[in-house]
């Protein structure tokens, strides 16, 4: 018997009793066991806990069959707190840490009947664009194991791309859901800032961080977003706004009258020809479905990377002050004073990229440099947001490549931080402006590496975004390609 593969199909099959949650869970655990030696997508797999949950779902099927994710195996990026499993953000400083509480998204997933199977590898504290900054080894791209999977949610993207699980959560501070989704040929969605509670997400840059899903199709993204979204009193920045029916939005097919804005000047330089070609072809598909292509301008977005890396590191230098060896995590041994203990714990516990970012953030916030760097970057952030506001007067969604290149070779950019940061050139804008953005597969480079189309919409207008992405998906089969069936 073949088991269903998408979250939607699994839910229907489990609810109807055609398959059991246990069968689905065992199959996922089997695939992970087989593939993880090569990919290193998972940091931790909780076979026993997952099977116990699945067995409970099977026992109480009649009662639980209405749940939107009943029996669906889900993986979580390792920066999302779970009581049942260690949570390390792929850092040595949190080796073995077991949080005393579950993140809000964990509670919501489990209340919706999902079966969380494990934690995925990522760049340490979500700082990176290739998953090479994990303290626990690189994750490999399932399309080509000599290439990076993107980052920082590289383990989540690789796990979905290799069809180990139908659904995974990531976090996106400057593109960390969308870029790995693009480079692994799957769909990744960053909702509007504040749409999903950050309670229980290990903070990197609090004004930019957002949790979101990675899946193989837009329908699954919509399904899980309906579960994740909503106000949470435990996150003061979570939006107190009604949550629309995202699953309903993706069933409307037509794009007639939809205006798709293309910032031509922004993508004129620095985009690989194969990537640009695939994105152009995708725009024609949208136009063929009734969308109207319009030119828009995002003149300040070329400064997005500079503004982003000053703001994000400033916030990170503050957020990561808590890892001091006192209340949790690893402590340096044998120090005679508290100050020595702090400095050694942090010096030994953090990897090089995290130290670089803490240093940069500390510097731009320090006396004499605050106005020149940090405040200046915050002002440029205002201008970038205003550009989006103006562009959204002329367009309902904005289309861009997700990444300027396909997946690059392992090791290629690790010694050059600026080159690594430029991988995020088209994704940081959505975080700085707080708008929702999605990446959907739209083709391959000549080296057979996946390319992603990024769509962005107005704040809180995820419904239009998901409807557009779903319409594109219905007309193409890029999302059905997988390294498993090639």
């Amino acid at each position: 018997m073949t088991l269903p593969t998408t979250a939607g199909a699994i839910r229907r099959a489990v609810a109807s009793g055609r398959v059991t949650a246990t069968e689905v869970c065992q199959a996922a655990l089997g695939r992970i066991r087989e593939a993880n030696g090569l990919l290193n997508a998972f940091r931790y797999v909780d076979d026993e806990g997952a099977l116990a949950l699945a067995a409970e779902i099977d026992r109480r099927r009649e009662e639980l069959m209405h749940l939107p994710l009943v029996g669906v195996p889900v993986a979580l990026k390792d920066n999302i707190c779970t009581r049942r499993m260690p949570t390390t953000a792929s850092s040595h400083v949190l080796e073995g840490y077991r949080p005393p509480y579950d993140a809000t998204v964990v509670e919501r997933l489990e209340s919706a009947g999902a079966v969380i199977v494990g934690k995925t590898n990522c760049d340490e504290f979500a700082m990176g664009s290739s998953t090479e900054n994990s303290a626990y080894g690189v994750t490999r791209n399932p399309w080509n194991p000599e290439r990076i999977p993107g980052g920082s949610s590289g383990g989540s993207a690789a796990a979905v791309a290799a069809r180990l699980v139908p659904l995974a959560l990531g976090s996106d501070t400057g593109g960390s859901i969308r870029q790995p989704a693009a480079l692994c040929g799957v769909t990744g969605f960053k909702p509007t800032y504040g749409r999903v509670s950050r309670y229980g997400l290990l903070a990197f840059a609090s004004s930019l961080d957002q949790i979101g899903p990675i899946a193989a199709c837009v329908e699954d993204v919509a399904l899980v977003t309906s579960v994740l979204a909503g106000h949470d009193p435990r996150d003061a920045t979570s939006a107190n706004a009604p949550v629309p029916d995202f699953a309903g939005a993706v069933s409307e097919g037509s794009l007639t009258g939809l205006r798709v804005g293309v910032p031509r000047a922004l993508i004129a330089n620095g985009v690989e020809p194969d990537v640009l070609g695939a994105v152009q072809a995708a725009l024609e598909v949208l136009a063929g479905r009734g969308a109207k292509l319009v030119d828009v301008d995002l003149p300040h977005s070329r400064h997005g990377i500079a503004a982003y890396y000053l703001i994000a590191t400033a916030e990170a230098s503050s957020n990561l002050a808590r890892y001091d060896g006192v209340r949790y995590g690893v402590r340096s041994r044998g120090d005679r004073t508290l100050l020595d203990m702090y400095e050694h714990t942090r010096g030994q516990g953090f990897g090089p990229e995290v130290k670089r970012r803490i240093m940069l953030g500390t510097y731009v916030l320090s006396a004499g440099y605050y106005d020149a760097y940090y405040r200046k970057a915050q002002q440029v952030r205002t201008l970038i947001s205003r550009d989006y506001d103006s562009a959204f007067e002329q367009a309902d969604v904005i289309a861009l490549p997700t990444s300027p290149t396909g997946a690059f070779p392992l090791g290629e950019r690790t010694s050059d931080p600026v080159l690594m940061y430029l991988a995020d050139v088209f994704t940081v804008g959505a975080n700085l402006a707080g708008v929702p953005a999605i990446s959907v597969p739209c083709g391959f480079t000549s080296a057979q590496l996946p390319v992603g189309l990024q769509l962005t919409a107005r704040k809180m207008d995820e419904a239009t975004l998901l409807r557009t992405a779903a319409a594109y998906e219905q007309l193409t089969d890029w999302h059905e390609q997988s390294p498993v069936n090639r």
Partner: protein
Amino acid sequence: MSSTLAPDEVERIARLARLSLTAEERDLFARQLTAVLQYAEQLREVDTEGVAPTSHPLALSAPLREDEVRPSLPRPDALDQAPDADREAGLFKVPRVLGA
């Protein structure tokens, strides 16, 4: 903006950030952070005269809640993951703070 970070400046920042660095790290970070700051120099081109800084993407209100007593993290749970603690007394233990 000063766009070069000398190794002794890196040392000063590391102190502020409570990070011990090796000599190699100090020299490497001096080069790499200089490159990042030079890249960031481009922001100088942008006219930001009179532009309000954005510290947050949402126009936030300050929501109030009822001042009710609610359960908080139990002390044993809070101490559970500590590298060193006196669990009976309910205290985190650290090396000496003064007079070392």
